[in-house]
């Protein structure tokens, strides 16, 4: 694992990155998150019972996942010059497969029973 060091020092690297990314971007992200939270709260009241229940659920899940991704992507920076390292933290996303599997199975047991 030798000889793979970066050609620029990491401090220079971060300086460079900080220059390219503006402070404004993170404030925008924060404001977006705030906005999404408020939307989340209002979705159920707009989508009252006459609307499709599943659509509401889907919308809410979408909003939550979007927010989670925003935080993970923009705030959660590991101190590492290689960007892919943070994707290791995203491995559990495949538990989504299990979630779908288990829900289908659970539905089967309720309907079949």
């Amino acid at each position: 694992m030798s000889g793979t060091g970066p050609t620029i020092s990491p401090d220079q690297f971060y300086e460079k990155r900080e220059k390219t990314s503006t402070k404004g971007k993170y404030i925008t992200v924060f404001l977006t998150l705030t906005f999404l939270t408020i939307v989340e709260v209002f979705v159920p009241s707009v989508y009252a019972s006459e609307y499709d229940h599943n659509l509401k659920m889907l919308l809410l899940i979408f909003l939550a996942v979007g927010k989670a991704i925003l935080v993970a992507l923009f705030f959660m920076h590991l101190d590492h010059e290689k960007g892919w390292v943070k994707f290791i933290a995203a491995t559990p996303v495949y538990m989504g497969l299990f979630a779908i599997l288990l829900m289908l199975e659970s539905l089967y047991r309720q309907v079949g029973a």
Partner: protein
Amino acid sequence: MKTLLDALRSRATWRWLGTGALLLMLSPCADAAMLQEAVDLPNRWGPNPSASDYGWRYDELFTLITILISVSFAIMLILLVLPMIRDRARAGHKASFDHGSSLFDKRFTATVSVIVFIVLDAWVLVIAVRDLREGYWNIPTELEGAYRVEVLAQQWSWNFRATGLDGEFGTADDVITINDLTVPQDRPVVFNLTSKDVIHSLYVPDMRMKRDANPGAVNQAWFQPITAGDFAILCAELCGFAHYQMGAQLHVLSPEDFGAWEQDASMIAVAGFDPEDTEAQWAWDWKE
């Protein structure tokens, strides 16, 4: 202290300690009563012959798998033992040098594993899926003349409920029995299983059937007896300290005997019906 250390260092101490410990451990083996008992008891070396319509599927597939894996294991054993004898390290013998990383080797490995998969797994898989769809999971419905039984498992007994003559659950003539089930021969017997407390599993070895009874849900299972007689029902899922006692009797009666029995049982049930006894009113709507 020093004498103790010296004693620990001496071989004789260890020899005595070792022999003593070994004898202690082996003492259960020398229990004559245990071995005598084994000789005296009636012995059975396999399952009883299948008494159900689809039992042959299990027996046949078991035999097939046994043959397949015996052959595979024999081949493996030869490949394992032969080098142990032939290629033992000895003066003048040199190991061959081969990383097994050539393209040929990789292709060879791939070919062998594909062949093994087809011979060992795919074949069995196809038969199993056929058996499941035609047999185990092809649960007959009421319209197909199924005899329906609701099973409520509890620690540590089996409650069985049949419809009685009126063909409906939850009525006065339901035949309710504990640890004792009577079913007709040559008619599919379909079960609805659930449990009061913990998970149990209805195991009827002679019918080649097993299904869990889960609290909070109803499971289905079925078999069709082809021989009249008495058979054992066991619990196969750990359910507490009396798990081993949770057996029941299965009586398969010929169609004529069964008709007479059902008549009697229904009448007795009606006579003994007590609407106040809510404990006994556990029937649920039949789930297909």
